[in-house]
């Protein structure tokens, strides 16, 4: 995206009011440009020279760097930008650009020679009559050429612009292509005469110009423009002649654009003349030039005619998703510099695309301008059908794969178990206030709904005595606890359990698994009693060995426990090897 630097105060003067930076940013945002940077001339220079940045003083002019869309050449300078924003804010009407009505005889003429087709076949011209520059507008005029050269002209390969003080020249003009040895002139900013081939050598050391030399360097002929006295206007796309250089005092400007792409040449010429016709004696009027080809055909430039586009109202409203009337649409379009009216039938809108809006190719571009003027952020949303996953199950799945990556094997055990397994075998007493009890169990295996994953895990180890040690298993599953707050009096809880069984207890291994789980949950290790993360505190529960068991406290709440399984419990489950066990509630991580 191209960036345009404009003086803030000049911009605000042109907009007829001043803005706070935030207000101006909002205006840019809704129009589709962006305030990229706020700086000063000094800061830009010191940045280029890699100097320490000085504090800006009150006298330094604030410069706004504004990013504009790559297809809006009309916004590449302050004049165009300010005009577009004034019209967008409804402060100004769309200007009508006209070509001065003069007879063909009194028109300046540009004769195109055949040889130009070998190197750079097209030229288009125009005259800005009675222009008044001040320093700022003069600089802007130069800057705009630079910006156009950089962007649409693709570094002068497609189009090159030459601007001249018409009063120093005499028409008719000729656009020729000659062997370099035959071209002699004093180029801009030089005092001495150069032959074109020598000039190319000379510019090889010129930082600014050397990057354009390749465009014509290897050609047998160079493009060149002369006036009737054989004064060289320019050697496009490299340099203009010194003779016709424009100054602050120049009144009449002759503009020529030479090109390999005629469409782009016309756009560039139109952009130059429409932007600066505002400084002409007859505002918005441009004097035409006749370009006469070697084959006798002739064209008059600039072509400032408006392009008419018929756009169905239904296309606009249907694409945006807002029911708008014709009047509303035409009013919105006028704010985007597109003159529009009801085309009679009531269902079509007739849009006049001005010469400044070369970006409008298709009704979809008109539709976009309606949407911008209406405000993207005011368009009512329509939601497509979609599904949302259950966060708890997604979290469970994420944790499950993390634990498997720690080398643990997943098991899937039964929810139902015997009372004995759920309590006595874990060295616990049934306090009658935790477990859901089955009323009609078919066997003692299905008496209660588990309140811990521990019995299922221990049963698994007990039945895998012959499995090589160590055994590392885990399960993520639900337990059910009595819950007064629930309509049915019981609620599920998602627990994670992991168990290590080997020649020794593997307590440290389970401890490090705790750390890893907390790490992947993004919980930092803190010291007691910090509630921003987790810490570990010794505990005293009967199913674990005293001194080798601890609770996990996360954000001040006990979320789990780990420890060496008590030898009596191991014995109850017929496990001959020491085990360490971890159990924690993952719902706290949601």
């Amino acid at each position, binding site marked *: 995206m191209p960036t345009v630097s404009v003086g803030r105060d000049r911009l605000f003067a042109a907009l007829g009011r001043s803005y706070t930076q935030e207000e101006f940013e909002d205006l840019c945002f809704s129009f589709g440009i962006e305030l990229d940077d706020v700086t000063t001339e000094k800061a830009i220079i010191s940045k280029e020279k890699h100097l320490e940045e000085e504090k800006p003083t009150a006298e330094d002019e604030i410069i706004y760097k504004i990013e504009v869309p790559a297809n809006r050449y009309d916004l590449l300078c302050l004049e165009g930008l300010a005009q577009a924003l004034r019209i967008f804010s409804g402060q100004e009407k769309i200007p009508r650009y006209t070509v001065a009505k003069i007879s063909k005889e009194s028109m300046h003429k540009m004769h195109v020679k055949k040889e130009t087709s070998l190197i750079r076949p097209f030229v288009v011209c125009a005259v800005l009559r009675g222009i008044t520059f001040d320093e700022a507008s003069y600089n802007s005029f130069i800057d705009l050429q630079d910006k156009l050269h950089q962007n649409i002209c693709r570094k002068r390969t497609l189009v090159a612009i030459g601007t001249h003080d018409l009063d120093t020249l005499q028409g008719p003009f000729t656009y020729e292509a000659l062997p370099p040895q035959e071209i002699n002139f004093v180029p801009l900013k030089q005092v001495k005469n150069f032959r074109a081939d020598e000039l190319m050598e000379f510019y090889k050391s010129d930082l600014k110009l050397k990057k354009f030399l390749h465009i014509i360097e290897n050609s047998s002929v160079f493009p060149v423009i002369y006036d009737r006295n054989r004064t060289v206007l320019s050697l496009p796309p490299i340099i203009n002649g010194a003779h016709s250089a424009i100054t602050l005092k120049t009144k009449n400007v002759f503009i020529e654009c030479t090109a390999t792409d005629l469409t782009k040449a016309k756009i560039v010429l139109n952009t130059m003349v429409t932007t600066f016709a505002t400084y002409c004696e007859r505002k918005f009027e441009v004097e035409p030039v006749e370009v006469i080809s070697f084959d006798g055909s002739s064209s008059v430039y600039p072509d400032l005619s408006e392009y008419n586009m018929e756009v169905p109202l239904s296309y606009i409203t249907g694409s945006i998703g807002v029911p708008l009337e014709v009047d509303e649409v035409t009013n919105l379009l006028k704010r985007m510099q597109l003159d529009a009216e009801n085309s009679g039938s009531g269902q079509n809108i007739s849009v006049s695309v001005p010469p400044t809006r070369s970006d409008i190719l298709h009704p979809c571009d008109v539709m976009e301008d309606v949407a911008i003027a209406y405000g993207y952020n005011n368009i009512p949303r*329509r*939601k497509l059908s979609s599904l949302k996953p259950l966060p708890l199950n997604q979290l469970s799945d994420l944790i499950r794969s993390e634990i498997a990556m720690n080398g643990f094997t997943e098991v899937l055990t039964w929810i139902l178990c015997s009372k004995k397994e759920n309590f006595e075998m874990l060295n616990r007493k049934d306090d009658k206030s935790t477990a859901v009890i089955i009323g009609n169990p078919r066997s003692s295996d299905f008496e209660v709904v588990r309140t811990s994953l521990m019995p299922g895990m221990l049963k698994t180890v007990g039945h895998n005595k012959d499995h090589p040690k160590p055994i590392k298993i885990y399960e993520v599953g639900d337990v059910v606890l009595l819950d007064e707050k629930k309509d049915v009096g019981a609620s599920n809880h998602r627990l994670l359990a992991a168990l290590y069984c080997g020649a020794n207890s593997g307590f440290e291994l389970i401890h490090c698994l705790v750390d890893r789980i907390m*790490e992947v949950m993004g919980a930092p290790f803190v010291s007691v009693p910090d509630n921003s993360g987790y810490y570990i505190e010794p505990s005293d529960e009967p199913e674990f060995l005293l001194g080798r068991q601890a609770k996990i406290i996360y954000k001040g709440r006990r979320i789990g426990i780990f420890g060496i399984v008590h030898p009596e419990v191991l014995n109850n489950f017929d496990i001959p090897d020491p085990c360490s066990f971890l159990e924690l509630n993952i719902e706290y991580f949601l």
Partner: protein
Amino acid sequence: MAEDAILGYLAAAEEIPDSGQFASQHGLHHSDVVNVIKSLHGFRYIDAQDIKRESWVLTDEGKKYAAEGSPEVQLFLAVPQEGSISKDELQKKLQPSVFKIGCSQAGKNKWVDMGKQVSRKVQHVEDKVKELLIRVQNGEEISKDDVNSLKARKLIVAQTWKGYSVRKGPNYAPKRKKVATDLTRENLQRGDWKELEFKEYNFNAKGPPSESGHLHPLLKVKQQFKNIFVQMGFEEMPTNNFVESSFWNFDALFQPQQHPARDSHDTFFLEAPSTTRELPEEYVELVKRVHESGGYGSRGYMYDWKREEANKNLLRTHTTAVSTRMLYALAKQPFAPKRYFSIDRVFRNESVDRTHLAEFHQIEGLVCDRGLNLGDLIGVLEDFFSRLGMSKLRFKPAYNPYTEPSMEIFSYHEGLKKWVEIGNSGMFRPEMLLPMGFPEDVRVIAWGLSLERPTMILYGIDNIRDLFGHKVDLSLIKRNPICRIGLN
């Protein structure tokens, strides 16, 4: 020994006031006593309080004189009781340092006459220096003046003596129990686990580092994005084709051939294979026409479209090249609505810095249906981004050659307290869709973003090279938490 002595002593006594005295009383080395005290303290059998004392110890020189006598006495004894000895003779009888110091000290003490000939002035001397040094060595007190004179001669130096006073601790027992660090199979087999006392476990430190495997953070985030798309009813496009022709990457998207993105500054073109072997000719003709002269209601770009440009191969600059192929295939079928997504590698000829890489991942989603409008686009974006935890969005008009309207997506960043751009979106232009053969009322809304940017924000990474590529810090990959995108 030392442990039994300490625990045994405390069985009867309240306190061991000084470990140093205790050691000498019991004929133990103080260092052994100190080690035992530290260990017993660790298991809280005893409580120990530090004691510090300044004391004097002999320097090497001091130790030498304590054994051999002071130099002045050695010199005095070397002088005959009667008569004299020549200085040279005397020097030969003594070590050089002893002679030198002896001369000056004996002279100062007026014990001898120092000349060419040396003779005694007194008949009898006491070696007071040696005597003092021996007293210091034995830990006895000496007067301040004596300390100063020995210190001045660098025969003694100050040393801090450290010891303890000891009382019974909360776990005091006359005999230490056997401590275990872990429960073993043998403990269970022997049944001696009941007698085991475990060494105190430090829960204030983290456990040992884990030996787990780890997934790359970028791919974890990618997986979550994939899940989100699937939940929203999107089908994944096959993106396993990095080499693409300019035609599918640009021309078919109505991106003009002079567009800056098609510069070698932005795009990697290929030396081999330099051009594509084939293109669908009928479609190419339609694309050429829409670029050159428009049609389908468009003015076109009005330039000479060149086949050679379209044939140039490149590394795809966006996954939209794949979307274009998919849409082209879709348009050939009787129309059915589709939702497509892809997340894969794209390539840009950019210089690498903190925020740019020559390759990165593009996330892209598109919906193709009849009668879609901007409200649908905004709606689907809000649905998508709210799943990433970004529910405060706003949209800025923008320019993109193949979408019209185009909208940049901004999200309000609570941490930065500002709006940040998070992606791009738009409706594909009719000049792109109609040559493919879609019915006129079919519209395609699409959006794209990079995978790296949200990941960097998510994991607080500010240099893209720390995240992706060979300069990555492996511990960063190991440390990073699960990706919670989509859990909101």
